[in-house]
């Protein structure tokens, strides 16, 4: 079962798709979930996810607007997608039949 931060970041990486590094993931999470995570939090979560094998990273090209620094971009691995599915499934089972407005409409 994934932590809440891990779910948000995984979904963020999935939504960004190509070239998912800190800034776009941050902006996507802010836009969709209304949460202003710091880059540090995001990279820390991504590092943890990578240790667990749920995301994979590759080094991007250095650009001038980044002061010659390379980006580190992330993609969600098959294991990561399975984890998300398992987490969502577990949540759905837990919520099934409860009258608190959790059922997907």
């Amino acid at each position, binding site marked *: 079962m994934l932590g809440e931060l891990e779910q948000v970041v995984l979904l963020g990486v999935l939504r960004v798709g190509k070239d998912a*590094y*800190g*800034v776009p993931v941050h902006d996507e999470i802010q836009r969709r979930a209304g949460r202003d995570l*710091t*880059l*540090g*939090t995001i*990279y*820390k979560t991504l*590092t943890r996810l990578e240790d667990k094998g749920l995301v994979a990273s590759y080094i991007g090209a*250095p650009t001038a*607007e*980044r*002061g010659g*620094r*390379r*980006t*580190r971009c992330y993609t969600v691995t098959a294991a990561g997608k399975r984890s998300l599915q398992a987490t969502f499934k577990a949540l759905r089972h837990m919520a099934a039949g409860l009258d608190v407005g959790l059922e997907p409409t």
Partner: protein
Amino acid sequence: MIRFAIWILERSLRPEVSASVIGDLIEQQQRGALWILGETISALWNLHARPQSGDSLVMTFIGDLRIAARLLRRAPAFTVVSVITLGLAIGATTAIFSVIEPVLLRPLPYPRPERLAFVWERGRDGSRDNVGYATFRDFMSESKTIEYAAAIGDWQPTLSGKDNPERVSGDRVSWQYFRALGVRPEIGRDFLVEDDVPGKNQIVILSHALWKRRYNADASIVGRPISIDDNPMTVVGVMPESFDNVASPGTQIWRVLGYANQPWTCRTCHHLRMLARIRPNVSMDAARTELDQIHKRMERAYPDQYASNGAIVVTMQDEATREFRPALLALSAAVLLVLLIAVANVVNLQLARAVRREEEFAVRVALGASQSRLFRQLLTEGLLLAFLGGAAGLLVARSSLPLLVSRLPMSMPRLGVIHIDMAALGAVTALVLALTLVMGLAPARGPVRDLGINLRSGRRLSGGNRTTRAALVVGEVALAVMLLVSAGLVGRSLIRLLSVDAGFDPTHLLTLQVNSSGANYREDAAVIAHHDRVRELVGALPGVTSVALANQLPLGGNTDMYGVLDPENIPSNPELVPSGDRYVVTPGYFATMRIPILRGRVFTAADAADTANKVVLVSAALAQRMWPGANPLGKRLRVGGIKGPNRVVIGVTGNVRHRGLDATTTLQWYVPEHQWLEADNQVVLVVRTAGDPAAIAPTVRKTIASIDASQPIINVATMDQVIATSTTQRRLALVLFGAFAVAALLLSVAGIYGVLAGSVAERTREIGVRSALGATPANIVGLIVRQGGRLSAVGILLGLAGSLALTRYLRTLLFGIGPNDPATLVGVAMLLGLVTLLACLIPGTRAARVDPSRALQSE
């Protein structure tokens, strides 16, 4: 900011981690410095790896910081109390020093400010006295040490105009004034020597603030005439916004003096201040000697026109700060004491915590942590606490400084440049950190060294720690006593001051200034008709008991004195003639002010109308000075020079406090309005009301405006407000000293409580044994109270000794009591004794409830 972020991140994080974050930060740096700072801290926090051998110091430090933060978060009560305590103390100290730095310490905002000096005549009693224009002129022509100099006179013009007449505070200055200061107008030109003559002196320079406010920053105003007191005067320049007129703070307009060869250029007309810039190659002492000798030559040349004794030369910086220096220094000392107490309290809390953490340390030592590692840990915790305290202090200073500044006297120089002094904040925080470390680490040595033994033996607590805590509490109590004594002295002084009999009844009085200036009031008859109309209409308002007009009121801050002569006994040197406050009043004045008539009678309408037989009332002190022991009624008096008409004394009044409740009493004389030389264009209306005088103010205002709406009505205030204003500085000192003293009291009581509570917890076993052996609960309470009482008694004694040594520096803030006022000392000692007793009782009763069986079993 971004460079700092890159610098610290590159040194703190592994390169493969730092590159992506730094890249992101560079890419997004347009989000601002604050964002970068936040992200940097977050990155350091989140992405930093566990320290390994060979890691940089920064990385270990961050590791320590994480542990420290976690520990602080786990002890929220300790953290919150410490941060609030430190924050309040750091904030208050920063606020006070933010005022002191620009007001007292910062050089004046002029080039070579140390060359600027005021030149005064030295009075017989050593006091400083203004100079007359002739004296100023002679100084100028004879001195070789003066580069530029200017004479400054008070000026309160009304900016007249179609709609909104306005009184502003101004200065009349001789032409070199701005040259002496070393500043030039921003727009237009400076005063020139040819402006400074009678007839050509209808020329003014505006302050930047007035130009912006009243003339909408319109540069074309320069060269145009504006209407001042209904005369056209040409604006020749506007001063820059940065110009701060330290010689008279708040001045909005300057007019060139133009005094040469006027009748009021005499040597005995002391109404000008003299500012001089001393030549660059001359020492201040040389200038002092030269000017003193020039003045002494003048005294020899005109023996019947001087009663002074040489000249006093004071640097402008000293002069500007003279009035406020003692109070500000006393306050800064007080706030530093509070800071010390706060630090002592926080250290005390830390030590109490250290006792509980002995096991943690012991375990870490057992697991191989080096002593230096543990010290570094403590150091980091102190640093983090000081940093949080500093941040809280910034918030406190930010919210309290504007409040403080708004209550400072308007006459204080450099008010406009006061802002939070970040250097002071940093210095105070660093001081707090240093004190915390010195006080907190030294005693921690013992436990850390002996930890291994402690862990094995299960023994608890080290004696050194307990002694230190007791010493800290004694110190806190002593400092609190000193602050309470100071606050008590200042407070008792204010009470004494307010109970001074002002010589009139200030309750139910409304005062305001009535103007009659401009083209319609060239004739005295018109002015007096206006006054009569004001009295008639306001006097008829419901709720008004009586009204009167006077050229000035007691405690109003005016100085309007004339020499008083007995025509039968005229001294040869006019400087030896006593001066008395000029009161030109309407007949109802004494009844309205409730000034007692000791002998004789007051003016009647018949006196007022009779211009041939002039009458005068004198204050008891003036009567005593002129005719000691004799009956003053029927004596004759001349005011305003030898040639003045004789006036017959018809009555003697009680003395009033003209200059201030705390000032030396002056002499007063009263003449009816119609019998004075000329009508005053600005007079004060004083209204005695049946009810609240403030409530009737709008009606009175409206009534006066209905007579002539073109005249400004200003300074509307109740007499109680006037008195409050005359004691502003003392009130402010009392509020601040009081707040500091209360804070000190609370902190020191909390300190005593903390020590005793900790001690009770440590001594549970001992107390259990005692009660098992038959000690009654009363014995146990007594045991604890005695322990606390000893601390408090030593602290109180030390504090009283400290007070005896230091309160004399408060002397300028005191009134009517000595700095070692026994009642205050005894009162404070008793108060602290009582409060500490209460603080002892709580841990005492807790100790008495210790259940012996449980206390003994717990081992």
